[in-house]
């Protein structure tokens, strides 16, 4: 470091750390981030308050690892790797975002000890890789699949949803929400298209009043003077300007020499709009949903024709609506016969709390549904949405890959045992790394216990003993009773995909950080 500054190789303000220093800096950073989210892990994990730096100073309360890490500003490059990995975990499987960071952090903590014992980082990486392969094989062998049995599969899904939700704010009503989430996912019939599930948040009421609606709810208003209830609706979903239909030919402008002409052109414009509305009505519809604004003139015309017109449904809304109603999104209206219209049994205005929403029921495509969340404050609702999103993602992954494992630290204890056995057969320093890997795996259930205020050493040791005595043991951490418990009886299940991703991503992240022996920070860009 001193050397490079003397000879002025790097620009001013840049720093370079080498060897031990660099490794130390990255370990410290990564472990600090891991410790930050550590306390949110498990059913008794605590939440964090995040206050945004922007002017509104908005507050978010969450225990979702990805959300926390996304919102904090980290300067340490190694910490950024961990933040990144939790983001990917979120994108890829939607849950386990905290676990992956804690696991990577534990791996690095162990690696630091090994490095201090003069084990070369490359040797540690080699050991970690082998241990990871072994752990993965064990995880795979421990997974079970009930997809063939619909009844059993549903129970599995319910249990997974409950396990995921139990660490979130929805834990009080986890039974209710687990059912909700499983129903929603089952409606997708394996298509895994989460876009068809619409979540609407409305403050007021209690969380328990949240419900799943079979139809589709659009948070919009019906135009003035138009029917509020339509049966056997024929719906045209459109994306077209309904204010003034501008001429798109480049450079066109109006230049007139008298007021009379202005009036004429205005009339022509209105006329154009009238024809448009007429051609829309000619489709034989009784409901018209547009992505863009609908001005008063066309609105009035629709009202006259007895057509319900809904304006300004945003793009996502439109796409989802088109998907649900089975119609196409239309932008030209000259060939009414060829346009596929959407349809549904009933459209009506409903009240949720104090807001009026539009409810489409009896829709063609049975996949879609809407979940309406109720809660006392917007913070609760947001956290509830995040939790529900996590649960839905996990369920979706499980539907795609039906393999399921027990939760509550069961897979970790099992993997740790296998890795330790592997270590005892492996010659050389790699074995040390494998043992470290096993310890890092065990740190996950230990953290769950610690967060619940339990004696982690005692419980993990008991689990270890139980698994050692019986290789098909189903023991895991029972947080409620504070002891080792049978995971099958407690119904604590997790998705195999999530656990596997945690294992792989965590190992990969720690490997990347371990490989670093030189840390160069360029001079921060000057901001004017």
């Amino acid at each position, binding site marked *: 470091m001193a050397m490079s500054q003397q000879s002025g190789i790097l620009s001013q303000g840049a720093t370079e750390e080498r060897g031990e220093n660099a490794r130390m800096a990255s370990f410290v950073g990564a472990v600090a981030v891991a410790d930050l989210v550590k306390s949110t892990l498990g059913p008794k994990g605590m939440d964090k308050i995040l206050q945004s730096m922007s002017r509104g100073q908005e507050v978010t309360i969450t225990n979702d690892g990805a959300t926390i890490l996304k919102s904090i500003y980290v300067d340490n490059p190694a910490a950024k790797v961990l933040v990144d990995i939790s983001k990917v975990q979120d994108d890829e499987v939607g849950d386990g975002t905290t676990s992956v960071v804690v696991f990577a952090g534990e791996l690095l903590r162990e690696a630091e000890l090994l490095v201090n014992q003069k084990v070369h980082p490359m040797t540690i990486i080699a050991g970690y890789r082998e241990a990871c392969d072994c752990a993965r094989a064990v995880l795979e062998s421990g997974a079970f699949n009930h997809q063939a049995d619909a009844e059993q599969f549903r129970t599995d899904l319910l249990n997974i949803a409950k396990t995921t939700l139990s660490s979130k704010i929805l834990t009080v009503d986890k039974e209710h929400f687990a059912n909700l989430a499983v129903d929603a996912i089952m409606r997708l019939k394996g298509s895994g298209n989460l876009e068809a599930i619409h979540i609407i948040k409305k403050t007021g009421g209690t969380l328990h009043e949240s419900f799943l609606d079979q139809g589709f709810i659009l948070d919009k208003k019906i135009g003035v003077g138009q029917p509020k209830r339509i049966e056997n609706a024929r719906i045209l979903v459109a994306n077209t300007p309904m204010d003034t239909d501008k001429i798109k030919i480049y450079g066109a402008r109006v230049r007139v020499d008298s007021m009379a002409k202005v009036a004429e052109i205005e009339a022509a414009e209105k006329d154009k709009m009238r024809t448009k509305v007429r051609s829309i009505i000619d489709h034989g519809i009784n409901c018209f949903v547009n992505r863009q604004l609908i001005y008063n003139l066309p609105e009035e015309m629709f009202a006259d024709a007895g057509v319900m017109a809904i304006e300004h449904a945003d793009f996502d809304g439109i796409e989802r609506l088109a998907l649900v109603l089975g119609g196409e999104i239309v932008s030209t209206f000259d060939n009414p016969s060829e346009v596929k219209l959407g349809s549904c049994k009933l459209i009506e205005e409903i009240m949720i709390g104090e807001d009026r929403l539009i409810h489409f029921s009896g829709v063609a495509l049975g996949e879609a549904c809407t979940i309406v969340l109720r809660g006392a404050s917007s913070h609760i609702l947001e956290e509830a949405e995040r939790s529900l999103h996590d649960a839905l993602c996990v369920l979706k992954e499980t539907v795609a890959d039906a393999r399921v494992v027990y939760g509550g630290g069961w897979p970790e204890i099992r993997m740790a045992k296998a890795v330790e056995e592997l270590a005892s057969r492996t010659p050389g320093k790699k074995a040390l790394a494998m043992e470290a890997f096993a310890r890092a795996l065990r740190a996950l259930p230990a953290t769950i216990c610690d967060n619940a205020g339990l004696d982690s050493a005692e419980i993990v040791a008991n689990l270890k003993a139980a698994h050692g005595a019986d290789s098909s043991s189903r023991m895991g951490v029972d947080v409620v009773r504070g002891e080792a418990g049978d995971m099958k009886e407690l119904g604590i299940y997790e998705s195999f995909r999530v656990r596997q991703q945690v294992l792989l991503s965590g190992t990969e992240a720690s490997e990347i950080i371990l490989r670093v022996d030189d840390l*160069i920070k360029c001079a921060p860009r000057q901001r004017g």
Partner: protein
Amino acid sequence: MSLAFDEFGRPFIILREQERKSRVKGIEAVKASIMAAKTVARTLRSSLGPKGMDKMLQSPDGDVTITNDGATILEMMEVENQIGKLMVELSKSQDHEIGDGTTGVVVLAGALLEHAEALLDMGMHPLRIAEGYEMACKVATENLDKIKTRFDFSKENIEPLVKTCMTTLSSKVVGRLKRPMAEICVKAVLAVADLERRDVNLDLIKVEGKVGGKMEDTRLVEGIVIDKEFSHPQMPKELNDVKVAILTCPFEPPKPKTKHKVDIDTVEKFEALRDAEKAYFTDMVQRCKDSGAELVICQWGFDDEANHLLMHKNLPAVRWVGGVEIELLAMATGARIVPRFQELTADKLGMAGSVKEVGFGTTKDKMLVIEGCPNLKAVTIFVRGGNRMVLDEIKRSLHDAICVARNLVRDNAIVYGGGAAEISCALAVEEAADKVTGVEHYAMRTFADALQAVPLALAENSGLPPIESLTAVKKRQLEEKNPYLGIDCNDTGTNDMREQNVFETVIGKKQQLFLATQVCKMILKIDDVIKPSEYD
């Protein structure tokens, strides 16, 4: 110093404002330059070889890059020093020319300069050192030609190529999966290679990546992947055996480049214009349909109305496709790029076996995979990785491996790696040095010493005792006259690089020697560095 005297003995100043400029002269200047170059080389030294470590680089904006690719490290280090910049250039030119060995060349240059310092202390003139280096470099490259072996491969027998790529990849983050990755690279190169002309157009290989998934999911698409989706959400997501039209004109009313105004002053004109506009859209879409196209790929945007019309006419379309992709698509499908709707005819269409929209994970990202094109000349390597940093690093590693495969297609002569070639060259140079009298003798000997810096660094990074392993190998090479012996970095128990399948291309190695010697010469020739001391 910057004070001179004219013929009348009056002093005059050559360099103004002394205090504002800093200046180093003579041997001091050479030494300062060497110092700077050495520092840069030292940073890279620990990244050499299969057990080389990574560097973590934080950009001025706070983005983090983790890599052990020499060229990337130096590029992102933002080296300020002028001599340091020379080293950066050095590694870059190796990257452009060969694509691999970017770390090795810098380490070699650093070692050459470091050893030159000792010679300077002996009172040798820098230029004589440079000349000696030149002579030594010639001997070394001749030796490379002597020890090189040809190695054979064909489209059917790709095994040798795969093995070479594996050597390159073993030092990277993908080391765990070097076999499948190497196969992907080789297949990609062979797919686009012109074995007759011994040429590979790397533009035809695209390396696309998407964060998420596992490294194992990386695959070779015999076609093209574009980071776009169909323009209308309700267009079919999968097409088979379609005729493709490639357009570079927007589905919008025309915009003449000359400035103009269309004045509307009567109702008739207003209506006429309205009809004209409508006609434009129907006309455009109809022309596409009439030509027989079943998929439209457009470089520009679509108007909402045009978009719907396309959907309506059952004509799936993709918009905002970048220029490079357009060209690739044109090459692969055999379609002509059409700049105007009027010129779209049936014979300008291309073919695609299958076009699919693929989604990833829980996010809404989608990509289009176009496969089964008649002209298989374009391929895409689609990379997946745990996070952005891994992904970027995999991309860089694959690029290196692809370059190696390309070099072998161009010229299939190889030398063995693991420092074997360097040691052999060092021996040859030492032998040649003994026949030379004069100052060059020393310089050549020094060159031989510097060459050994590469195996030394390799051994050091692999955790072996550097000097012992090097001397042991050197002794064996001398005794057995076997230029295939190198440092056993992977701890496999043999020093024979033939058995370990560690080899490099001769062109790459030669380039390293040439470039390193050249840079050395350039740096040694500097005897005066003048720069403004501080800007402020």
